[in-house]
Structure formats: C-alpha cells, structure tokens
C-alpha cells in the first residue's frame, strides 16, 4: 500500500513544502477571490434579493478565476529548473507524481476558497442551507477545476503568452462544472433539491480524476520532447 502510492505522497509533500515557502502567492490568490466576489455587489447594486440570486454564480466565477491564477505556476517552475524532466525520466510512475502535484495545487488554491466561501456567502445574504449547499458544491467542484486546469497548464507549458492562452483553452471546459455547481443552490431555491446537480458534479469529479492526470502526463511528455 505504502509502496504503490509512495511517489504520490512524496509529490504532494514536496509541492506543499514549496508552497509553504511562498505563502504570499497563496494569500494573493485567496484575496483575489475575495475581491472579485466583493466587486460584484458594487457593480450591480446592494439589493438583497438580487444578491441572493447571483451569489452562487458570483462565488463560482470567483473560484474559476482564482484557480486559473495558480495554474500557470503548476508546472512552469519545475520545468524551468529541470525537475520536471527528472520526474518524467524517473522509474516512478510519472502519472502518480503529476497526480500528486494536482492534489497539492487543489490543497493550496482550491481548499482555501472552499473554506472562505461561506463567509462571502453571508455577505450575499444566503440562508444557512444555501451556504451549506454552496460549500459542498465548491468542495466537489474545485478539484475538477484543478484537474482540468492541469491539462491546460501542461499543454501551454513553455509556450509564449501562456497565461492568456491557458484561460482561452480551459474556461470553456469549465462550463459543465460551473453550471452544475452554481445550479445546485438555485435548484434548491426552486424547490427541486440539490441532489441532482451535486451527484452530476460528483460524477464529473470521478471521471476527471481518472482521466485528467493521465492526459496531463501525455501532454507533459509532448512538451518535454
């Protein structure tokens, strides 16, 4: 058990250690999320009914953008100093190492967003139940964002203008997660119950957990050739 997943654990631990040394980046991404979400009421107006309606969408779009921010640095530093090449050549499974990096990215970029989301939801006057559903949807959804985003980060690795290009490639692929995630709260408000949306979101998570690390590995090998 320990032997099989060892590269995965090592990869997660290494990336978390590296992230701990650059705490400002994590905090910057988190504050970016907070500020984007807080700008919306300023742009739209303080009407509580309206805010309650846009809250799930606002928080979800904030989460998408915050995830994108960290994605550019998912593989780039390791590519620059040659670590990524060593990983690809090492006898350990490259896919597991990449999967570890993706999990670490979610722990650093996704999880803080999930944890702070209920506080922001309060600003939008969401009910307790709405807050709970929103947080669960983000908990299920933000890993999908990291997983799909990793494919885009691998494809654009070392390419000119990779930041803007990454958004162009990835944001359309985020649409199903956005729809099911933000829709869960609205479906509950409409009396339909959030279960349908949340189970579809969970299904998306399972599928992308299986395929995304593998596709990312293929894309990274192309980039390293």
């Amino acid at each position, binding site marked *: 058990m320990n032997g099989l997943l060892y590269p995965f654990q090592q990869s997660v631990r290494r990336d978390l250690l590296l992230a701990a040394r650059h705490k400002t980046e994590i905090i910057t991404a988190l504050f970016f999320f907070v500020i984007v979400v807080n700008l919306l009421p300023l742009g739209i107006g303080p009407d509580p009914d309206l805010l309650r309606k846009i809250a799930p969408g606002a928080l979800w779009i904030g989460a998408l953008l915050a995830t994108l921010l960290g994605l550019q640095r998912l593989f780039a530093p390791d590519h620059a100093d040659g670590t990524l090449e060593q990983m690809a050549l090492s006898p350990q499974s490259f896919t597991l190492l990449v999967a570890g990096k993706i999990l670490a990215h979610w722990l650093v970029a996704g999880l803080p967003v999930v944890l702070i989301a209920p506080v922001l939801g309060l600003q939008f006057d969401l009910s307790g139940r709405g807050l709970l559903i929103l947080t669960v949807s983000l908990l299920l959804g933000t890993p999908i964002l990291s997983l799909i985003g990793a494919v885009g980060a691998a494809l654009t690795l070392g*390419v000119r203008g990779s930041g803007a290009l990454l958004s162009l490639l990835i944001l359309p692929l985020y649409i199903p997660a956005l729809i099911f995630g933000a829709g869960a709260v609205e479906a509950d408000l409409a009396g339909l119950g959030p279960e349908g949306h949340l189970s579809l979101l969970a299904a*998306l998570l399972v599928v992308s957990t299986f395929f995304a690390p593998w596709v990312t590995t293929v894309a990274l090998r192309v980039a390293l050739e």
Partner: protein
Amino acid sequence: MNHSLVNWFKFASPASFYPLVGRLIPFFATAAAILTIAGLWVGLAVAPTDAQQGEGYRIIFVHVPASWMSMFIYCVMAFWAALGLAFNTRLSGMMASALAPTGALFAFLSLWTGALWGKPMWGAWWVWDARLTSQLILFFLYLGFIALQAAIDDPRRADKAGAILALVGVINVPIIYFSVQWWNTLHQGASVSITKAPSMAHTMLLGMLLMALAFWAYTIAVALMRVRCIILERELTSEWVKKNAME
C-alpha cells in the same frame, strides 16, 4: 491486398499527397459551386413560403448546414488528431490544423445567421438557448485550438498538443451540450422552442440537403488548399518541393 496497403501508405507521405490533392481540389471546388447555385435556387426561388415565419425562414438554408458542418468538422478534426497520436503520421496533424479555421468560420456563420434569424422571430439578437450557447462554446473551442497551435513554434509539438486538446474537446462537447441543456431547462423552461421544426415541404428539405452538400464540398476543397500550404511551409527545404511545387 498487400499492394493496395502499400499504395495507401504511399499517399500518407506529404510528397505524394501534395500532387494528388492538387488534382482533387478543382473537382471539389466545382462541385461546391454547382451545389451552391442549385441549393440557393431551390431554397430561395422554388421552396414555398413558410406558413408561420413567412420568407424569414429562408435563413435556414445557410444556418442549418453551417451548424452541421461546424460540429461535423470538429469530429473529423478529432479523428485526424487521434490518428496522428496513434500512428505518429505527419499528415494527420496537418489535416487537423487545416480543418480548424474552416470549422471556426462555420461556427461563427452559424452564430451570425442564428442572430439574424432570432431577431425577427424571437425579437432578440441573442437568446440563451441551449443550442445557441453550445454553438458559442464550440466556437471558443475552435479558437482555443487555433491559438494553441499558433503559439507553439515547433510544428511537431504543435500537432501533438493540438491533437490532445481536440480529443479532450470532443469528449467534452457532449458533456457541455448536456449541461447547457440542463441549465436551460432550469432557468427559462421552454420559452423558445426551435426544436419543433415546422413541418417541412419536400423542396425545403431538398434545398437544405443541397446546401449541406455544397458546404461539405467547400470544406473539403478549402481544407485541401490549406493542407497544401501547410505542407509547403513545412517542407520548404526538401528536394521534391523544389521539383514539383512550382507547376
């Protein structure tokens, strides 16, 4: 059997593909021109006026074929991409990148004609209908593919990265379509229905079929023209180009 296999692989090399394609282009271009004239004649002059939409429905003769082609081209692109990844043939990647701009053009035309159809029929240039929204996302997917290939200098890497993106995209298209439809039913119910097509006269169907075939022939002709350009650009230094391309 063996002989035909050898022939097939012979045409998979750019040097023998190039002249073969050169002979095919005029054929498909002529077919596209004739079919367009026939299709527009049937669609604009022969087909009867629609009972509900008057003459405005005649946009269907360019709108529907353009939408079909934009979706079909994406699938063909993904097919070439998969072939290129599986067998590592150079030509497959070139075919995929030759198809992308035409697919993007058809996706754009489908949106443009859709807006022009929507304004008189629904009173709005744009409605967040499931089909329109999916088509818009398909357009973005095309743009992403083209931008990714344009940003990578090494053509071999551009081909492979594009192929991976096209395959990820083609798996996602049904998911996106399903999710958008789901979203649509939650938000506005069946306020706009374009799923229920008006019962169509035979001449209407014929016109649409002719236009679809015309767009098909056009796509083949243009994609082959573009693949010839791509082959030349990549093989500018090779011996056969100097001999053959100037004719």
